[in-house]
């Protein structure tokens, strides 16, 4: 990163709400249906049809706002955003212009530099447009299944100053949305989309530079790459005396570069006006209180609790709260366990390793995992055995203590038993011994490994190391 120029980033994240039906009609919102099988005259904008607001959409949006500390508008309305494009059947999108449902929120992110608060300007509801599929022969096919799927648009303040912060923000936002249950946030399916607005300015300057927009970055990796490239491009341009053009740029995944989109998107005057087919949205304090009550304890609150109550590391705590089901599982296991730090570590290392991508269901009863953590804590098993037990329980869940007993997996700490094995290992591994004696202290590792082998993995590594060090002198 240049020391002269800092990057200034604001993010617009579109989240598809997982209501059963669309925002203004009764069509299904299910992903993956054959083209144009989930649409009706209303979402197709056919002549004479009218929108009717799906109340659940408002409730979900309010929950998203409450979960990000926003002020909820008691009175808001929907406005028409007018423009022509083939994926927009009515030639206007029903959105919210000047009276959004939620405003003035924030969320906290964790990066290497520590904790930082990112402001959220607003959250509003709107309808999604259809999908355009460009064919090899040069034509374009329109699939209107997605038309009318409910979206919330979450706009951040331009508080973000690095690609790392941007990714952390989207990850935290995604976690919060998953916790509230308003969306399944699957970036690869498009139920969470990220637009990045990026400008640069000399450090210390207050005024904003000209920004460019990169739309629909659908993975954390792409967000990071696009930001890195665009920052560099803008800095180089400014240093060469060029001006930054305000425009939308397309991120090319293959080359990692951004390209100007030829379509004059910024020439649009959307001619916003209140939609006369819809009535204003009026929310009572009672409704908002009820919705507040339906929100589970959110990631940051849980994380704070884990740090305080259990003394977990920030990294482990952050990893546990990233998904609600994992946090719920951890808390259930912790209720049955004394070795909570071990437990946290077992989950973030071994359990995460075994969990398939996208899956959050752990096939081991929380109490059982809690017991393994305790056995470790008590020194009755070593970490290698712990791993073995977890793997065994993953295949077939059972009482780990009983299994350890049956298989004879208890940690062997008896010096009387270990000493002869250590002596044997020293005889069998002359190279490691001489390496160690010649100053290569790491050579003790393979020796520990050899002794462990002789104990079928049950030896107490601490005792083994002590004995080795003693005998190697």
């Amino acid at each position, binding site marked *: 990163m240049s020391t002269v120029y800092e990057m200034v980033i604001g993010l617009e994240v579109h989240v598809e709400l997982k209501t059963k039906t669309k925002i203004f009609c009764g069509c299904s919102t299910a992903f993956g249906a054959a083209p144009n099988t989930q649409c009706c005259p209303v979402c197709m904008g*056919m*002549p*004479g049809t009218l929108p009717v607001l799906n109340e659940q959409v408002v409730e979900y949006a309010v929950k998203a706002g409450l979960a990000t500390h926003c002020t909820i508008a008691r009175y808001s309305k929907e406005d028409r955003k007018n423009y022509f494009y083939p994926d927009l059947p009515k*030639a206007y999108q029903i959105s919210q212009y000047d009276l959004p449902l939620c405003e003035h929120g924030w969320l906290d992110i964790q990066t290497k530099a520590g904790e930082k608060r990112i402001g959220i300007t607003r959250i509003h509801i709107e309808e999604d447009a259809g999908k355009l599929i460009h064919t090899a022969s040069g034509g374009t096919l329109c699939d209107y299944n997605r038309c009318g799927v409910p979206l919330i648009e979450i706009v951040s303040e331009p508080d973000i100053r690095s690609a790392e912060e941007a990714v952390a923000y989207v990850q935290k936002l995604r976690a919060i949305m998953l916790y509230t249950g308003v969306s399944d946030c699957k970036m690869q399916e498009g139920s969470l989309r990220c637009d990045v607005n990026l400008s640069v300015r000399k450090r210390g300057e207050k005024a904003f530079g000209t920004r460019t927009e990169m739309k629909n970055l659908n993975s954390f990796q792409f967000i990071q790459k696009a930001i890195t490239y665009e920052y560099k491009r803008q800095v180089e341009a400014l240093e060469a005396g060029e001006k930054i053009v305000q425009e939308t740029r397309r991120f090319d995944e293959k080359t990692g570069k951004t390209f100007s989109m030829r379509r004059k998107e910024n020439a649009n005057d959307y001619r916003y006006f209140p939609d006369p087919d819809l009535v204003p949205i009026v929310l009572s304090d009672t409704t908002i209180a009820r919705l507040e009550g339906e929100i589970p304890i959110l990631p940051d609150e849980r994380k704070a609790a884990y740090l305080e109550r259990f003394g977990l590391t920030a990294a482990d705590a952050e990893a546990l709260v990233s998904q609600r089901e994992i946090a719920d599982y951890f808390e259930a296991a912790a209720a049955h366990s004394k070795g909570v730090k071990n437990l946290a570590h077992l989950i973030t290392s071994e359990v995460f390793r075994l969990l398939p991508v996208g899956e959050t269901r752990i096939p081991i009863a929380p109490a059982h995992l809690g017991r393994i953590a305790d056995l470790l804590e008590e020194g009755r098993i070593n970490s290698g055995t712990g791993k073995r037990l977890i793997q065994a329980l993953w295949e077939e869940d059972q009482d780990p203590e009983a299994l350890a007993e049956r298989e004879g997996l208890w940690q062997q700490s008896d010096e009387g038993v270990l000493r002869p094995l250590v002596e044997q290992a020293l005889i069998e591994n002359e190279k490691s011994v001489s390496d160690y004696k010649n100053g290569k202290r790491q050579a003790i590792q393979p020796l520990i490994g050899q002794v462990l082998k002789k104990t079928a993995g049950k030896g107490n590594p601490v005792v083994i190391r002590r004995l080795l060090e003693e005998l190697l002198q």
Partner: protein
Amino acid sequence: MKLTDMTAYELSQALEKMEISSVEATQAYLEAIEEKDGETAAYLTVTREIALAAAEKVDERRAAGEILHPLAGVPGAIKDNICTKGVKTTCASKMLGNFIPPYDAAVMERLQERQMVMLGKTNMDEFAMGSTTENSFYKVTRNPRDPSRVPGGSSGGSAAAVGANEAAYALGSDTGGSIRQPAAFCGVVGMKPTYGLVSRYGLIAFASSLDQIGPLTRDVRDNAMVLTAIAGHDKRDATSVDRTYGDFAEGIEGGVRGMKIALPQEYFGEGLSPEIRDAILAVAKAYRSLGAEIEEVSMKSLGHALPAYYILSSAEASSNLARFDGVKYGFRAENYESIDDLYKNTRSEGFGPEVKRRIMLGSFALSSGYYDAYYKKALQARTLIVEDMNRVFRSCDMILSPVAPTTAYRIGEKVSDPLSMYLGDVYTVPVNMAGVPALSLPCGEDKEGLPIGMQLIGPAFSERKLYQAGYALEMWRKGEKK
């Protein structure tokens, strides 16, 4: 009496008593259309087979002893901006020349439930924009009372069909006077109901906050009968009011004794034809003689109504008509190189000049930099009109006024002067702006024998009272004629 001379109510009674069959009545109307519509040109589409099939069914069910709805088997016509499933719905535009809706409008569903017989779809000004029906892409409808004159607009086809006895009743739509003014020009009865009384689902939108569907009929009782059939809450229209209404003809013979009727002085100023002014004042006198109190009131906001209306309605229309882009249905230009070309060419070729005029006007009023000066100001003017109406209705039951400043113009007279045509809406638009109901009915003729209409405006949901007062005037006029 010829079958086609009967009012819808009389026909309904005769059908119920099985004095005539619905098929007979329908055939009589179809013959009348064949005979006269070459000149009147009220219809764009005549649905002969559908009409006869429906009529047959009604006769069958009646013969089987079923008690049917009063409108069952009574042949009516539908304005061509109301979606009829399986039947072309063109809005009198090239843009929708081939559009066959796969759904019925809510009002059509209600009428089908009541076994209506649909004779066909009637001509109108393109997309309901106009006051003469000359803006139709397809044909010019002629006033049945004088074929050299316009029937009014935009529901000119519906008004002419009823006036020419080519339908027992018709449905029209009214955004700034489009039911009431053609009713006045053709000498029939037209009602624009309270906004939200009749579902707009399936009405191809012109201006969403102003449009309403209403009946055009031979007399007031017929009008109440048809309104009763089409009124009611519809979940598919968020602006539809959740109320039940019962029979609008209930108490229709109650008279006007004790009613207070207001005459707004701003409505009787410059521009109003002296014959029309005299006719309205004569109505006031008649009402007085029937026991009503007449009060002169001042409604200063009325002067703002017309310009505010043209801004609001054009703004909403510019957005509502944006969906006609040649992509999914309707007309598509033959020649285009890019998507922008497709839009430009389709809309240039598909829309007529008046529609284009209003889309441009509306887009301008909403554009950045002008929104506050025009659109927002117009919304504020609208609030003043609502308040003015509410104020008058606190002390008066209804307002009496002219419908239009003149009687029917000659065909071609206003075509090159759209602004002067807009000025003709001056008495009708405040009603749509306030969302209140208004009834237009004949109250006399000018020296050339052209019908003069009067307007009764009431507070929201006062349709029954308006019908009552209208009926009283009708009876009084019948008495005077003897």
